[in-house]
């Protein structure tokens, strides 16, 4: 039974990071804990970095986590995992989506998108467990590319060994009725991929 959990959700504007973190915070409440979440979305037009903190505890104080103490890093985009991994505590866990979204510093300047194998190896050196999810093709398979965040939450629910139903209910409460079925399917695919 989890009593304290600090999670950091990161990705690129437009990926559904904020909705996913909202749902994760709600799950904390549904599991009988206190929960807070905090996001920075000022400059997050599509294309900017988005980060959102989710904390579960019997009584949460600060709405943000502390660098170097995060239990689970949820990276919705591959290189963002590298940008934020120093927030992870030693022994923390990572769920990372293989999806790559090219930053402008790569397309219009000379920066280079990191090599996937090298990045994943480096992440494994910082975490006790790294779950790699190929969320975009799975979302397509589920029937809508916008279910990437549901796939990621499904992977998280598997990793945390929490009651899947609590997560699924929280997700379905949040998405519009007409997308319920694709999200149910996305949740199933995400759990299968992470399990």
């Amino acid at each position: 039974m989890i009593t304290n959990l600090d999670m950091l959700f990161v990705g690129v504007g437009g990926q559904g990071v904020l909705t996913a973190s909202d749902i994760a915070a709600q799950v904390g409440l549904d599991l009988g804990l206190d929960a807070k979440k905090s996001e920075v979305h000022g400059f997050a037009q599509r294309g900017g970095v988005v980060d959102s903190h989710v904390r579960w505890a019997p009584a949460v104080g600060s709405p943000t986590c502390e660098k170097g103490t995060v239990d689970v890093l949820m990276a919705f985009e591959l290189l963002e995992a590298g940008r934020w991994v120093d927030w992870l505590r030693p022994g923390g866990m990572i769920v990372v989506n293989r999806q790559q979204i090219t930053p402008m510093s790569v397309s219009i300047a000379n920066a280079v998108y990191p090599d996937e194998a090298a990045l994943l190896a480096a992440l494994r050196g910082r975490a006790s467990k790294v779950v790699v999810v190929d969320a975009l093709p799975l979302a397509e398979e589920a029937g809508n590319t916008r279910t990437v965040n549901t796939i990621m939450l499904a992977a998280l629910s598997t990793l945390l060994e929490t009651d899947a139903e609590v997560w699924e209910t929280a997700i379905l409460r949040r998405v519009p009725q007409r997308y319920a079925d694709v999200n149910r399917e996305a949740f199933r695919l995400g759990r299968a991929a992470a399990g």
Partner: protein
Amino acid sequence: MKVLLSGNEAIALGAWEAGIQYASAYPGTPSTEILENFARYPGIRAEWASNEKVALDNAVGAAFGGARTLAAMKHVGVNVAADSLMSVSYTGVKGALILVSADDPGCLSSQNEQDNRQYARFGKFPCIDPADSDEARRFVGIAVDVSEQFRTPVMLRTTTRLSHSKSAVEARVPDAREFKPLSPFDREDGLDRTILPEVARRRHPEIEARLNAIAEWSATEGFDCGVNRIEWGETDIGIVTSGITYQYVRELAGHKSILKLGMSYPLPLDRIREFAESVDTLIVVEELDPFIEEQIRAAGIVVAHGKDVIPICGELTLAAVRQGLYEAGLLAAPLEQPAPFEDVTVPRRPPALCPGCPHRAFFYNLRRHKRKAVLAGDIGCYSMGAMPPYEAMDMVISMGASIGMAHGFARAGGQESAIATIGDSTFFHSGMAPLASAVYNRSNIAVAILDNRITAMTGQQQNPGTGITLQGEQGHEIDIAMVCRAMGVTFVEEVNAWDVNAVNKVLRDALAHEDGPAVVVVRGACVFTPHFHLQPKMHVDLAKCVTCGSCFRVGCPAIIKSDEIYPTSGKQKAAVDPLLCTGCTVCMQVCPVQAIGPAEREGSLQEAL
């Protein structure tokens, strides 16, 4: 049952429960969602004003009549409203007047990190700082009571971290107060609404007395109602704190005694003195300025640590407070810095204009005028024109400043040709007065008004140029070109935002125009409005691409590097990311070898979302 509400959602709920009847605001991060949420409650009026001063004046008028009112704005918005704010403190109000100031420590989305508690002292009215969503909701009601009891405006101060974080709030059926039925205007109700010099002179001592009375309230009822409170713990150290900072203090030093001030101005100094005398060492932990600390010290209370250990700049975090408390001797262990991740180089991801953005073709053209003209910019999504690959903005200071700066630079700055760039919402906010001034003084500047049919930067709010009101009604839509013509501008041209050559031509004509200011209205809807329609996505014919780089220079996130190398240059050819492309065709228009063209058909982006 408990629900998670953001600070802003909680303020909206609290305002409704407290019987606020009328609210007015101008959008600005992190304040925007307060009115967006409040507008959905029944029985109230909520409006977007064209700027913050108008928003406050609207609320003042309603409060003068006896209604309970609220005006919301970001911290720098209070600068715009400050003229009225200082005077309404003198006149006082009849119905409650709550000014919500949303500060932005850390400049997460702002041009500065001014500490607006200073306005409370400057303007001599109280300031209330909640520490989580539950308090945000409850403290609105307390602010209303204080405002009506002391006939004073009250500042309810939030910060980005409070406004945009969610915490649990009890979701009971809201016991909304009865809206006060308004009696007909009573001129003899004793409130002096006309701030003439003789009235101001008479009112000033009364304002000083009011401030003392509120400090007394804070020391007594302020503790009874829980706006201020003491959490006793070990007494070797006592910490005075306020607002969101309390959360960091409680988490790190919850075993010590904590005096939490929900009212950060005026201070209950005698109660603080008593607290200081009950502990061995007093520490003040507050974000930004030493606002509380200086007042406590000035009252002769000994403060062991404050801004000597807590940073004055930037947003406080658990890490910053931990380090400060360690330096103050309260925590045994210093901050442990995790080793920076250096195994792999992670490229920066600067924000960019969205794929399809109507501002793109304009900046692609504007950057070509850099050598001939000075480029004065303004605040909005189009501020990204200052960044690569455009770098087409030489100065930006505050909303509406572009036109005045362009004129001044052209007059006396050493560069006679000047182009001001301003958005539609910013034009109505504070662009009309400087344009009038430029016309009047026979300025020859060029002014580009980027009319994307929305206030985009803050998340797509309606404005006078769109004619839709905050509560979704049809208001009156003001035509920007007509406004400029009515002011006497002789060159007013409208142009399609996505037509690269047309934008270029009209810019050149505007610069050549010599009979007063020339105005170009660049029209094209933001991709997040229903007016924007997805077109067939673009596709690069790799056989034709010669890696000239033209399409990369439009600065679109959907243009990426392909895996194919062009042998002559050794560079990667261009490609289009079909997930991001909206089919706006700007890249197609700039490609000199016609390598880019449409690929397939799609519906509207709104539907896709």
